[in-house]
């Protein structure tokens, strides 16, 4: 809503600077988008109010004239102009040399500095200006004619310069969608400076024959139009509206059309009541019927679009058809044009819900619908209609019919609310006296009647305050009039609730710390992904990972492979589905970052989504996924070649590090077969904690990498994808006790080198060593894997560092030798291992 301050001045004297006013408005909840100077870009320096005192023909040019202009100086100046609308005595904006103006022959708003120029041999000593040249509007046909009472010689900036406060109003502030409505707030906010609202005179000179003879109005659906008022003005002369009105409309952001339309818009801006003017001649049967549209009815709007109406939409109809969409837009058929004479002014109260629904269904948003949606003052219809009729009489030469239409079957009584000093104190935290409360509310025109108990007041709510319905609403009025910044500040001293630990939150925070500590960067991706992302991931929707042993385990838990959730109204196909996996986002992040970074190691912990059977809300399980690519370490003097490429073992190391820090003791990795085509067949493993599969760690299949736009071999892309919910649940279950006392007895370290078939899994050998060593084997670390001479073909050598330690005594050489022999014997029996000689 644009509030031109000169216009505002008709109702409220401005007592503070525009900037201070903007600050107070914002503090009181009327956010100020901006304060615009008018004119916006030009400064109107060297431009004055002038009067054409003499017009003479140009001696050498038929289409030019010489106009002598008095601009308040002893010597009038002569200008050469081609303007068609000048006459002697006309008041005009007169620009002297040096004035900065827009080029009147271009709509591009180029600024030019005015210089004296010779036109066909005669020096033009200045210029009379069009609205376009002054930046008032885009009107460039003819000179802007000023009102006859414009004072000659006054700088134009003093005469017409202005500020416009642009308010960005929240939906509760429908009442401020008018100059008077905002004026009421402004008066209240500058009350202490003495500002008061004064309303325009409500005078109507109705002298014509009664309107009932010419128009019959029927309100059929008063549930959608609780009040329908109207007046008739006959004999209107349609033409341009006066300059002052055009100027005000332009400053308020509306385009002048003709005097009838401009007047109805003017009154709407003044009072906030949308009006519609019908050309009565065009209404068949001289009837106005307010009713729901009938099936199949259509209407051509004044925007010349055909709208299909439905039976829930309220239409303004003549005897045959709709001529307007109630509260939204008029119809082309009844539109005012040059030939219109008899004007029916509609001033109605339509229900917000109905107007909003209709406007949304039709894809329309108009000045009228915007106001009706936010509720207009039901008591203001007649006053606005009278104002409109009187202006039509004064400006457009109309003859106002006596009589009126005002159908208002169920007048609403004004709301009354009892407010107590206790309620104000209870919500605000400050004790106000009843007198202070009443004084603050009186600034906003609330009716007040102090009650006998001395601590409460019966408040009568003005009809334009649809937003005030309960005591808390009045508390806000008191608080904002007092100033939120002036209210006290205190610390909560209410009782603390019983504890409510959020272990899964703590778990996620812990995971973040561990995984960043392991050298990975956290990303946060949109929860929305494209169909292509999902299809690439689910090329084989039934892809199942199988442990080599045979127990089937799905790549994604079965539920995750249901049809993903799709948005009804996505912003783009890139963000159309709720994500089913974190991996696509990570793959995109990886591709993006590899354009400028060598080593990329990213993880994300977040929800994925899938429908949840009969449950209303979908499941939102939490996943933890990561991708790694590039050299293990950045190139440096310590790693002159940048370290080896990150691979499966880096991803596995991170998963192991995470699981160890989460204090899981039984961690296992088992072979999987992946039918999805996503994983490298020789470098992928199921991750098991306590025998339960919690995810996978793998390298990306090179063929899949290509589809995701990721680098080809020899580059490797390692990944992990874990079920964070399962991990969390496991952390909450009983674990083997982690703590073991530290042995007082010395450790003995020995190396053990074995030769086994190449097909024997190191993990199995490790398990056998640990099982056999029991608690006397403190650690067994594989430190070398070797194939090649002198190891026979098909065999490999595994070398372990064994640490023995007893809790009972210092080991003797014999005890260690026995233990070691048992290990070797067990390995020989189970996996055919022999000691390396």
């Amino acid at each position, binding site marked *: 809503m644009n509030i031109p301050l000169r216009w505002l001045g008709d109702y409220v004297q401005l007592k503070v600077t525009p900037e201070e006013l903007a600050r107070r408005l914002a503090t009181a909840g009327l956010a100020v988008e901006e304060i615009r100077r008018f004119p916006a870009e030009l400064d109107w320096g060297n431009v004055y109010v002038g009067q054409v005192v003499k017009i003479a023909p140009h001696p050498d040019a038929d289409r030019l004239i010489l106009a002598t202009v008095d601009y308040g100086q002893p010597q009038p100046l002569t200008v050469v102009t081609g303007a068609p609308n000048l006459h002697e005595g006309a008041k005009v904006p007169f620009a002297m040399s040096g004035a900065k103006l827009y080029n009147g022959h271009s709509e591009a708003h180029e600024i030019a500095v005015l210089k004296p120029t010779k036109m066909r041999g005669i020096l033009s000593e200045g210029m009379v200006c069009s609205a376009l040249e002054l930046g008032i509007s885009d009107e460039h046909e003819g000179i802007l004619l000023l009102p006859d009472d414009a004072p000659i010689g006054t700088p134009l900036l003093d005469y017409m310069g202005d500020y416009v406060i642009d308010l960005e109003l929240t939906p509760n502030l429908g009442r401020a969608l008018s100059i008077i409505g905002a004026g009421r707030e402004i008066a209240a906010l500058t009350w202490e400076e003495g500002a008061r609202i004064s309303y325009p005179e409500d005078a109507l000179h109705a002298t014509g024959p009664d309107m009932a003879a010419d128009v019959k109005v029927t309100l059929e659906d008063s549930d959608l139009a609780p009040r329908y008022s109207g007046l008739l003005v006959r004999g209107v002369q349609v033409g341009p509206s006066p300059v002052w009105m055009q100027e005000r409309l332009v400053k308020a952001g509306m385009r002048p059309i003709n005097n009838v339309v401009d007047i109805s818009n003017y009154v709407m801006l003044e009072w906030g009541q949308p009006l519609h003017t019908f050309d009565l001649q065009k209404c068949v049967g001289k009837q106005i019927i307010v009713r729901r549209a009938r099936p199949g009815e259509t209407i051509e709007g004044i925007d010349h679009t055909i709208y299909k109406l439905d039976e829930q939409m309220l239409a303004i109809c003549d005897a045959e058809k709709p001529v307007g969409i109630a509260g939204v837009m008029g119809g082309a058929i009844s539109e005012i044009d040059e030939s219109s004479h008899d004007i029916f002014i509609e001033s109605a109260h339509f229900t917000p819900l109905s107007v909003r629904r209709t406007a949304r269904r039709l894809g329309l948003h108009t000045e009228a619908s915007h106001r009706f949606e936010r509720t207009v003052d039901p008591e203001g219809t007649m006053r606005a209609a009278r104002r409109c009729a009187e202006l039509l009489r004064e400006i457009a030469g109309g003859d106002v019919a006596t009589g009126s239409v005002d159908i208002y079957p169920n007048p609403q009584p004004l709301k009354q609310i009892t407010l107590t000093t206790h309620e104000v104190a209870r919500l605000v935290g400050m004790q106000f006296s009843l007198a202070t409360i009443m004084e603050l509310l009186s600034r906003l025109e609330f009716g007040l009647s102090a009650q006998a108990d001395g601590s409460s007041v019966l408040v009568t709510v003005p009809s334009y305050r649809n937003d005030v319905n309960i005591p808390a609403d009045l508390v806000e009025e008191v608080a904002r009039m007092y100033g939120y910044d002036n209210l006290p500040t205190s610390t909560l001293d209410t009782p603390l*609730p019983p504890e409510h630990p959020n272990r899964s939150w703590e778990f996620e925070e812990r995971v973040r710390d561990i995984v960043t500590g392991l050298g990975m960067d956290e990303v946060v991706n949109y929860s929305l992904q494209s169909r292509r992302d999902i299809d690439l991931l689910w090329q084989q929707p039934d892809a199942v990972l199988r442990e080599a042993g045979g127990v089937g385990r799905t790549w994604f838990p079965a539920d995750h492979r249901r049809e993903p959730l799709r948005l009804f109204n996505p912003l783009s196909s890139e963000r159309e589905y709720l994500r089913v996996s974190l991996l696509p986002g990570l793959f995109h992040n990886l591709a993006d970052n590899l354009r400028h970074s060598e080593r990329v190691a990213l993880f994300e912990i977040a929800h994925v989504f899938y429908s949840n059977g009969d449950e209303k809300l979908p499941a939102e399980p939490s996943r933890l996924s990561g991708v790694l690519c590039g050299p293990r370490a950045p190139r440096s003097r310590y790693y002159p070649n940048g370290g080896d490429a990150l691979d499966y073992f880096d991803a596995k190391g991170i998963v192991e590090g995470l699981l160890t820090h989460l204090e899981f003791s039984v961690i296992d990795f088992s072979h999987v077969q992946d039918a999805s085509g996503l994983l490298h067949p020789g470098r992928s493993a199921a991750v098991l904690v306590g025998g339960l599969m919690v995810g996978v760690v793998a390298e990306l299949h090179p063929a899949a990498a290509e589809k995701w736009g990721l680098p080809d071999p020899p580059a490797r892309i390692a990944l992990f994808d874990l079920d964070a919910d399962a991990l969390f649940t496991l952390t909450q279950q009983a674990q083997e006790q982690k703590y073991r006392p530290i042995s007082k007895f010395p450790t003995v370290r020995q190396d053990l080198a074995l030769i086994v078939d190449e097909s024997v899994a190191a993990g199995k050998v490790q398990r056998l060593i640990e099982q056999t060593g029991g608690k006397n084997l403190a650690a067994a670390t594989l430190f070398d894997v070797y194939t090649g001479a002198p190891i026979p073909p098909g065999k490999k050598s595994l070398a372990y560092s064994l640490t023995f330690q007893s809790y009972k005594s210092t080991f003797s050489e014999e005890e260690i030798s026995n233990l070691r022999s048992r290990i070797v014997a067990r390995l020989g029996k189970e996996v055919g291992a022999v000691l390396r000689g």
Partner: protein
Amino acid sequence: MDTELQQVAAEALAELESASDLPALTRWKGQWLGDKGKVRALFGNIRNLAPEQRAGYGQAVNALKEQLEAALNEREASLKAAALHHALASDTVDITLPGRPAEMGHMHVISRTIREVTSAFVQMGFQIWEGPEVEVDRYNFELLNIPAEHPARSMQDTFYISDQDKSGTGSLLLRTHTSPNQMRVMEQVKPPIRVVVPGRCYRAERTDATHEFYFYQMEALVVAEKVTLADLKGTLATFARLVFSPDAEVRFVCGYFSYVEPGVELMVRCTLPNGKRTNWLELLGAGMVHPNVLRNGGIDPDKYSGFAFGMGLERVALLKYGIDDIRHFYANDLRFLEQFG
């Protein structure tokens, strides 16, 4: 006889002085203080003396022995110090060479912000709750005093999940704010309530430097007897000092959200790490919980009062770190991510 011992001492000390390394010291020690050394030999002279002279002589030789031992220790310490000094001198590095890289990842700036903000509220006795990202219309709007066709709905463009009845209050949508959790918390616990609920939210809006369709909010809800607007002001002022800077200032202006009354908007101004004072930035909408909302949550609004707010967490980070474009957050460019610990 004293003269003789003095000569011995002078001779020994002179030799000690010329011993320039530890092996020479060992040799000197054997020669003078060893079992077959010269001082031992002097003790052997005792039996050649008259009995009355023996005690005096013995003491003098002992004194000589102690003198030489002390000199040896001193000389040894000084030679060791010199040797160490020499060794360290050759073990000097160019201390300006880069350190050995220790790879440490970075937490996403929004995760870090959430942690900082929630910690501030945990300090003030708040519990951390969570709620679903996919919501039902009823929780996201209806129960929060935003019925269908209410103009307040146009403040929050909504993503709906397809195949649902869009008009009904049961339709599924992506939550447009964390406020549905006000209801979800009130359904589960009775006052006193003091919770924060962080999480992702979605609005069907075009993205620009200050708007994302995807963002994080943190809801706060406090309900108890005698919770006031003054408490809300105090809580947010404390939050601003804890999270932004000790001299952070807050301003409260009237704001409109249909689920609170009175409604408040919080503006914050703080000092950046570089010492610059920021402009006032609109940080969040807040207010006293609307009586209808309390009633919908099964709480008697005449007995209890409460406040609530929904804080835009990206805005906290924008202000705190002076980030100029919200689109950096979810582009996940390492050159951005690595700027934050």
